[in-house]
């Protein structure tokens, strides 16, 4: 604040001559100042390169190949990250596990955002009975901690889907289940944010104008109001990716998530604590990758919040 008033008073002419910044430039300016967010972006790019570029060097069948003769071997030249309890190469598994973990994080958030926007938008726009019914459902979902719901739902949907073949690769059907249940158990906060945005935005003149010229409701909701509330949605969705990756890690760690042989960073840790004193490499590598990913996404989300939505900052 002090800085801007100072520079404005020293260079009043500059202020008049420079063309006004576009929204994108403004956002980028604010984002650029957030060093940790830039650090997060760089680390995320490296992690994506690791998970998707690494696949060029090691095949998935190698990642899933068991060789009980070399089980629980420490890091060596052949297996740089060591081998797991059935002799699979941990380096290769962190590469393919990373793909699945990142995929789950991104797609679960798509579902979460879709649900959150729909429920929040309808509740906020229509108000009245629709609002109270939808918000009671939201409250009911919030009443039970997410991990408990995830466990119950993982059991409910377990073993229902066959393996899926996509792009020449076979995935355990549990990947889809996990994506679905993480999306279904995490939309509540987003719905509340969207609802609050809609409640205040729908009172604006532009909505009244749109309604006056007979714009259909669907268009008012999705083309007039929604774009105006995109900033908090983007921030919340970004942080949601981190949360989804953590949720996958927790549920897979408990053995109820993605089923082997499909690797994820989470299920690689399942049972690792049985070998805590003999084979620390079982959990160190996938665990570190999870922490790095989640940390970077949280930094990125924090930077986005500062850049897109400076007023909402709480801490």
């Amino acid at each position, binding site marked *: 604040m002090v800085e801007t008033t100072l520079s404005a008073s020293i260079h009043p002419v500059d202020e008049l001559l420079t063309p006004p910044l576009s929204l994108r430039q403004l956002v980028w300016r604010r984002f650029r100042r957030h060093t*940790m967010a830039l650090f997060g972006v760089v680390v995320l790019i490296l992690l994506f390169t690791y998970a998707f570029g690494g696949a060029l060097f090691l095949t998935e069948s190698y990642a899933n190949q068991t060789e009980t003769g070399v089980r629980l071997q420490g890091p060596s030249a052949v297996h740089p990250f060591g081998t797991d309890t059935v002799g699979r190469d941990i380096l290769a598994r962190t590469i393919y596990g990373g793909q699945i973990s990142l995929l789950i994080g991104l797609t679960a958030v798509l579902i979460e955002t879709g649900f959150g926007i729909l429920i929040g938008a309808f509740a906020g726009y229509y108000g009245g009975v629709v609002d109270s019914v939808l918000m*009671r*459902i939201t*409250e*009911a979902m919030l*009443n*039970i*901690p997410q*991990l*408990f719901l995830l*466990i*119950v*739902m993982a*059991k*409910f*949907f*377990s073993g229902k889907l066959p393996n899926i073949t996509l792009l020449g690769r076979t995935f355990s059907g549990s990947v889809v289940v996990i994506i679905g249940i993480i999306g279904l158990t995490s939309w509540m906060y987003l719905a509340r944010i969207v609802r609050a945005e809609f409640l205040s935005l729908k009172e604006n003149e532009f909505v009244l104008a749109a309604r006056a010229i007979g714009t259909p409701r669907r268009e008012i909701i999705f083309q007039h109001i929604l774009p105006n509330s995109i900033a908090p949605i983007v921030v919340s969705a970004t942080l949601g990716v*981190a949360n989804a990756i*953590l949720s996958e*890690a*927790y549920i897979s*760690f*408990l053995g109820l998530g993605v089923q082997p042989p499909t690797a994820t960073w989470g299920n690689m*840790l399942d049972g*690792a*604590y049985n070998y*805590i*004193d003999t084979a*620390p490499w079982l*959990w160190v590598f996938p*665990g*570190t990758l*999870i*922490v790095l990913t*989640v*940390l970077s996404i*949280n*930094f990125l989300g924090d930077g986005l919040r500062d850049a897109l939505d400076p007023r909402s900052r*709480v*801490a």
Partner: protein
Amino acid sequence: MTRYIIRRLLQAIPLLFVISLVLFVLMQNMGDPVATMGGRSVTRSADRERLRRQLGLDKPIAVQYLYWLVGNDWTKIDLDGDGVAETPGQRQGVLRGDFGASLVNRGKPVLQVIWDRLPNTLLLMGASELVIIIGALLIGIYSALRQYSVIDHVVTAISFVGYSMPIFFIALLTMYIFSVNFKRWGLPYLPTVGMFDPGVGKTTGQVALHMILPVFSLSFIYFAGYSRYVRSTMLEVMSQDYIRTARSKGLPRPVIIYLHALKNASLPIVTVIGLDLPLLLAGAIVTERIFAWPGMGRLFLDHASRSDTPVVMGILMMISVAVVVFQIIVDVVYAWLDPRIRYS
């Protein structure tokens, strides 16, 4: 105020009803409870049939829910499978405080099963919550008063890492350092699993020793949220006019910080703590699993994996009721602490 509380309680009833209904439907695919009953498999199909009838599993789900909710002592059930209901039911139903009997610990009432574990969980979670609150207050106030100092930045960075870490990672890491490696180096090391050493017995010292690692892990993960919150509310309060007034009339700094500022800054913190308290009952699923702590989280996990639906339902409903009740309590306490708030 009394009317407000009554209205909130009345609103809670349909909410809990919907939750129980949804959960009951979700329970239907937990697996075959008869297959894992009593820890041994019941193989003869005639026995299975009889057991399913005894447990009421042969009934349609709507009837099962009805029996779970209001019991079946008002009707007769068919035990021998001849199609004629002749035996009077025994169950009282949740509304009369009967959550049924555990299927795994055959015949043991659900409430008893939960009650056996609850103190362990409350001990672990209560200790963690206490460490978190005290730590967060100290660190939060410190970094608010010295905003952008080196320590503020370090604390911010550490709390970001803690916030981003899955709890099993910090748990495994501390186990590896303080237990495995300390033992290897011949240093005094910390125990990793259980609540006490069976060779020594359940003494206060033993339990405290076994609590160090799980409490540390839990605090490390949940510390971030609280300390950031304390910091931001403190920053907000410290910039207000009445603090400047207090300063200008020459009050000593500690009086300003702890009596004037903290009092108002702690209002929103009370809300956050109050809303987290019911979750202490639920325990920590992952932490209790890693450290083999015999609490509610592990109870839930064990019984969920063995399709013991009465216990799982009991735990989830207990959490829901606690959350609803604490929400009301927090609202009431908040209005009492902050006279500006009035409920109509």
